[in-house]
């Protein structure tokens, strides 16, 4: 039975219907993509799933339980982590702290533990730090652990954001345009990295991306939406040759 199961999810902003009747079922460990023209409603879908907006209508089932109407941090604790279309790190805190803070869902101690520095507190703090370092070194970020993100190049910031999301130990990882603003070389690196993560952690990954080489080379299944409504879904090949998709989205690359 599906890991994420979204049924007829609909979102209105005032008059305008950003997402209509959106339905999708993602399997455990699947790698899927959500594409579509600008303003199609992709990011909104992510926002709805991650609890940032509450859908006007529809149902969101994750891991067998409804997560509709939960607060974002609750959704995340259930095992859905995401990155953002434009990077949202805590730029004034070291990369390590960025990861540590993402462990709030598994803090395991209370205010008075940290006043009194109880053994439990000490233990948890150590675990958190170790875990953070582990994730960082997995993505080859160990040496920037004590840097401030604001002084890192854009490409690296993207990686840190992914690391932060991974550190939550999610079952589903949602990436909103991970390759945006990366140059061709870095894009290749990213493709490889995402592939590895998918393999090693065996988690489901769902991405929004406008760079077709990324989508096509990674994802086994693609959904295309426009004006919030689905216009096509299927395997990369099918999508690439789908006339509607070409007309609405891919276009021809003559300049």
């Amino acid at each position, binding site marked *: 039975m599906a890991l994420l199961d979204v049924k007829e999810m609909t979102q209105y902003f005032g008059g305008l219907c950003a997402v209509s009747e959106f339905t999708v079922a993602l399997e455990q460990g699947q790698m899927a993509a959500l594409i579509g023209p600008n303003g199609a409603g992709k990011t909104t879908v992510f926002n709805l799933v*991650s*609890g*940032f907006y509450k859908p006007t209508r529809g149902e969101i089932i994750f891991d067998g339980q409804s997560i509709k109407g939960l*607060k*974002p*941090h609750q959704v*995340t*604790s259930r095992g859905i*982590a*995401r990155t*953002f279309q434009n990077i*949202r*790190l*805590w*730029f*004034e*805190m070291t990369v390590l*702290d960025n990861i*540590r*803070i*993402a*462990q*709030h*869902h598994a*803090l395991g*101690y209370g*205010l008075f533990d*940290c*006043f009194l*520095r109880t053994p439990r*507190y*000490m233990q*948890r*703090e*150590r675990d*958190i730090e170790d875990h953070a370092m582990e994730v960082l070194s997995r993505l080859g970020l160990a040496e920037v652990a004590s840097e401030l993100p604001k002084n890192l190049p854009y490409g690296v910031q993207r990686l840190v954001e992914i690391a*932060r*999301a991974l550190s*939550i130990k999610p079952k589903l990882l949602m990436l909103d345009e991970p390759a945006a603003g990366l140059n061709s070389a870095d894009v290749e690196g990213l493709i490889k990295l995402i592939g590895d993560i998918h393999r090693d952690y065996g988690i489901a990954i769902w991405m929004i991306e406008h760079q077709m080489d990324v989508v096509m080379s990674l994802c086994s299944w693609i959904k295309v939406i426009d004006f919030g409504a689905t216009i096509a879904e299927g395997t990369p090949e099918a999508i690439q040759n789908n006339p509607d998709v070409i007309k609405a989205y891919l276009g021809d690359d003559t300049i």
Partner: protein
Amino acid sequence: MQRLTVPALLACLFGVLLWAAGTGALNVYWQSVLMFMGVNIILATSLNIINGNMGEFSCGHAGFMAVGAYVSSLLSVALFTKSQVFGEPLIGPAAAVWLFPLVLIAGALAASLVGLLVAIPSFKTRGDYLAIITIAAAYIVKSTIENIGAIGGARGFMGMSAVMSAMNETINLPWILIWVFVGTVFSVWLIRRFIYSTFGKGVDAICQDEIAAEIMSVNTDRVKLVAFMVSCGLAGLAGGLFAHILGYVNPGTFTILKSTEIMVMVYLGGMGSLSGSVLAAILMTLLIEYLRDAFGFLNTFLHYISVIPDSYEVTQVWKWVVIPLLLVLLMQFRPEGIMGRRELADVFPGLRKFYKFKG
């Protein structure tokens, strides 16, 4: 071993203070200056949690101070001495020495409860709107007190000094000095442990990007709630001490001006810098006390070199021109406060070995 240096130093300082106060090497006046310094340290560091770490703009700290001040004063007067308001003491002067800390804590708790008045709106309301809520809360507190005629209303409430003397009669020590010292150390210690825990770091996360925090599993509401309650509670503690130092409380003391005074200390020290706030509190207190007299000399001097006619006098009034002026200049040269976002240990890495921050 070296981890113990700081406690050791504090212990020495404590001893010296007691001795100096006992022998009168430190007269009542200077004692009170030191005590106000302590109170200011508590106030600045606690406000720093909100205005520094969380990046909100709370202008109502004095309000929570007031709650602490009144609750603890009322309690201690009611419990330990006979007074026009409450008549015979409920427990009696003898117990004062032992129960006094509880009175202070009661004040702190009350304050942190009133803190809910801003903590809960802060879930939805942010930034300058929250600033107004804090001001409003402070006003509400102040004007509630003013409307309780029984405890003197706007004309203030007194009688705590009797409690102090009662404590001295039981055991002859400068009690209030002791408690201010303990309270100050306790607060700073508490705050440090809070903001350096992963839990406390959530506060900075909220400051820098609340949305990211929420989506990265930080329960922002809970963190805000805790932060506000800790901050307000300590403000209450400070208030309790303040009231017992002065022996008289008056809602008029806890106006926006008081709040701004505290705010200035926070920003002077540097947003989010604990040691900064402490330093700033100390400096401000000394500066103000120093200027109290400085003008006398200045006057005679200026008259002596006759830059100003003898008829004209440089009066105390200038104090409140000079202090802001100094601050404005300081802002120009150090636009992020004395310490910026850093701590002492970042400025002098040598210190690190004497106390650890994390873990």
